[in-house]
């Protein structure tokens, strides 16, 4: 009996809840409370029950009837109080929302924007330079001698321009780094200045998961009469803090670049394993993210700036690498396939 009462309660209450018109509600009322309704039958059964169980069951039954009556009253009130609940019958708010088609910027553009934003706030101006360069800007002025391995055709794309260009002497190439813009800028501006240069660079690499013949770099240069390695550390610490968060550790490791002296490679504590060592950081706990150093005096001489009067700091970083590290992207080709299902995630 008790089990049946429980079932009746659930059923009755759900039927009341489901009623959306006064007529519908009346039908439910009749089903349970009319003279031949469910409760009438139950009371008859109660009468036939043994004297021992009758008081308990009677109490239970009365209680249940009260609950149903109250629910009916409440629903009746709700139904008569206005049009909204009636409307509910036709309006289904659970249907999906309508999203406007949102276009997104490319992840690389966003990362470049983030990087340049950080440096802009430190007072750096954002400038851009051409992708088609000459050997002077891309190599010579940057203290990369003619026999340097990176000047071999394998590391730089050379262009056929002699057949149409009036200037036949200059060998044109696609810049292999953003550093030539250092030269262009210094030839035209007097220190002090501080700039960042985002842009595309090209190297004849076979394309695979970690190599692309085209990628992006952001270059930085600050020249003044008293710029030191200590300043370089401050600027890049600040960059790493804003780019990777305050918990990221940074280390400066001596390295070799022809256009800076002293030179430093900057490592960040691995953002995947927090420095414990993982596959991404080849168990070292550190990730190389940029190259930097103090502008080599030969570079200053090439652009007619007196290295005894001025000193400068310079740095350069690969945008794809930073994007890949920040988002755990394991294949550089994603950036140029432009699958909208990929681009839409950022």
């Amino acid at each position, binding site marked *: 009996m008790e089990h049946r009462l429980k079932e009746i309660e659930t059923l009755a209450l759900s039927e009341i809840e489901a009623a959306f018109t006064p007529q519908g509600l009346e039908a439910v009322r009749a089903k349970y409370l009319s003279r031949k309704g469910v409760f009438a039958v139950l009371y008859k059964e109660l009468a036939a029950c043994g004297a021992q169980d009758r008081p308990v069951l009677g109490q239970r039954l009365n209680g249940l009837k009260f609950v149903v009556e109250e629910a009916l009253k409440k629903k009746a009130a709700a139904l008569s109080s206005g049009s909204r609940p009636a409307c509910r019958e036709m309006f289904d708010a659970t249907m999906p929302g309508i999203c*406007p*088609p949102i*276009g*997104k*910027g*490319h992840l*690389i553009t966003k990362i470049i924007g983030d990087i340049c934003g950080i440096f802009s706030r430190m*007072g*750096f*101006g*954002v*400038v851009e330079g*051409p*992708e*088609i360069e000459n050997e002077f800007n891309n190599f010579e002025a940057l203290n990369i001698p003619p*026999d340097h*391995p990176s000047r071999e055709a394998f590391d730089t*794309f*050379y*262009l*056929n*321009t002699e057949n*149409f*260009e*009036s200037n036949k002497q200059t060998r044109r190439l696609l810049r292999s780094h953003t550093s030539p813009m250092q030269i262009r800028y210094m030839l035209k501006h007097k220190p*002090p*200045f501080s*700039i960042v240069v985002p842009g*595309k660079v*090209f190297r*004849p*690499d*076979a394309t695979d998961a970690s190599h692309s*013949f*085209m990628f992006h770099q952001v270059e930085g240069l*600050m*020249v003044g009469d008293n*710029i*030191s*390695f*200590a300043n370089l*550390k*401050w600027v890049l610490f600040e960059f790493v803090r804003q780019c990777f968060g305050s918990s990221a550790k940074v*280390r*400066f*490791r*001596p*390295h*070799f670049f022809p256009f800076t*002296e*002293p030179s430093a490679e900057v490592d960040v504590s691995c953002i995947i394993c927090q420095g414990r060592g993982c596959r991404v950081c080849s*168990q070292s706990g550190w990730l190389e993210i940029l190259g930097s150093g103090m502008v*080599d005096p030969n570079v200053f001489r090439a652009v007619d700036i007196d290295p005894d009067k001025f000193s400068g700091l310079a740095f350069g970083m690969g945008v794809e690498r930073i994007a890949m590290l920040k988002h755990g992207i394991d294949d550089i080709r994603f950036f*140029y*396939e*432009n*699958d*909208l299902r990929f*681009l*839409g995630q950022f």
Partner: protein
Amino acid sequence: MKISYKWLREYVNTKVRPNLLAHWLTMAGHEVSSVKQKAGDFIFDIDVTPNRPDCLSHLGIAREISAITDKPFKAPRKKRLRTQGQKQDFRIIRDDENGCPFYTARVLRGVKVGPSPLWLVRRLNAVGLQSINNVVDITNFVLFETGQPLHVFDMDRLSGDEIIIRPAKIDEQLVTIDGTQRTLNPGVIVIGDRHKVYAIAGIIGGADSAISPSTKNVLLESACFDPVRIRRSSLALGLSTDSSYRFERGADSHNTIYASDRAACLMKDIAKAHVGAFFSSGKQASVRAKIILRVAYLNKILGTAIRPAQARQILVRLGYKAQGGCILEVSAPSYRQDTWREADLIEEVARIYGYERIAAVAPSIVITSPDDNTRDLAAKHDMAKDALMANGFNEVISYSLIGRDMIKDMPWDEDDCITVKNPQSKEQEIMRPSLIPGIIKTAAYNISRQLYDVRLFELSHAYVRAQNNYLEENRLAIALYLKPRIEKKTAPEDSFFRLKGVILCLMDTLGVKEFKFENTMSQLFDEHYCMAAISGSLILGCFGRLRGNIARAYGITGAVYAGEINFDQVCALAQPRRGYKPLPRFPYACRDISFAVSTSVEYQQIAALARRIGGPIVENIELLNEYRGKQIEQGYRGLAIRIVFRSREKTLTEEEINSADASIRTGIKASFGVILR
């Protein structure tokens, strides 16, 4: 390069744990990529930077450790070698003087070729080499100890009493010790005589003159070769050896004799060799001028307060001779071919002092604000991108280099493109003359992956050949592909007008007013479905429905709409917004006109006429719908337009509106023979 911890400790007395030592080396510029335990020893794998060939040896690394830990460095002492036996007539002829600035050879007689002693085998095993025989092992040992590559010839296999260092002849052949037959070219330096080749200088020896168990007399070579020639030869032969790896980074001519002596001593001790005559040809590098290091300048560049004595001690530990106080006079050792200037010494001091110890200091403010043009252009780039993204278009980045096949049947001639001299593949042969090929390829990629709403844009460079010059032009390309699933209620041509609308919105955003759309023809787009945006005589860009043959070539079956505008030209026309238009103070009223008109009449003509007749009270004309079909006479289409009337001065009266509406109706009926409905 592999370095043995045990072996190192013969030259520098350090008790520092291998892992900590590895860290210190890394922080001094010699990145230790791994430390592996092997047979009671620790093997460091060090990535030596290309400017430090002196560190491609145990002595070199030991010297660095001596400086880092400030402990004495002790190289094996040079022993006096007594030449035994009679003098011999032997000549070294350097025909290729540039290829080989310095060459030495030593005769070793009565050599007993056999197995190496255990200690030597262990040393070689530690750095990953197999023992071959005592003579060869000694040369390898000395290479890993001193960094100087040596070579040994079986002297009795040489045909005469002379050795000639010369460029290889065209197609000269040599079977090298690895058993490979190699074809040489004149860029390669060889050791041989007039007719024969014995070895490829600095890279690998020949099989014929190699040391064999029956070898009695040995010629020991220790020389310097031109790094660039060795690198090119190594690349050309596709062969990199421990020897070529060092020579292409530069060998120290002063190290040649030391290494030769060291090897000769070991040959005497281990292989019972009688040390014979020593020959040399060429000049060793001359002593370099002193470098002045101003400690104050060093501290200025580094932002430190390093004392002169500290700087001097670091340099001395690294093998420099340094005298003085605040101004140090420094002589660089011959093995440091990378330090010639004050700046180089500053780095030396800094890296041993420790980059970690240099405090980060905020620079005294250097603020650079870009000039007006740069700022303006950057702002316009952002505005354009925002406008496109707000319209649901996604930015893509495609390759600036493309394959010739990508412009097939397109309006660009590959002869007018800038081409790449050394492409690595067919996909990188030309600089893109337009962003269209790339954006279509990207559209095709997405369509083939079942995406049904493909809206793309790219704002980037195209590379254009001018008369006798070239340009990097900023272009903006857009592409649109909507599968009917999205456009179920509208005609497919809707995409065309969406694209047109986006361009309109873009122009409006940028503030370009002086332009109009005109029908045009293009190799890219279908006839009629092609328009150009024109300003004066300038064509700003063109858009339309991609021709079927082009779409098919890219593997697209549906209709793709695309376009490209010259962003630089558009920006030049953009006018900065100044002030604002006052908001209307009076209400508007509309009149809808529905009519049938010959299909030869363009909407634009009708709208222009209506505007002219209606005068200044016509605020706007909107197209409500177009109808073509059975209920309209053949050759006609139905149009419904809405005219919005509003005056700036007053509320228009019913009569004024009706009268204007009537004139417009009469006007378009008279001019275009429309049938009002």
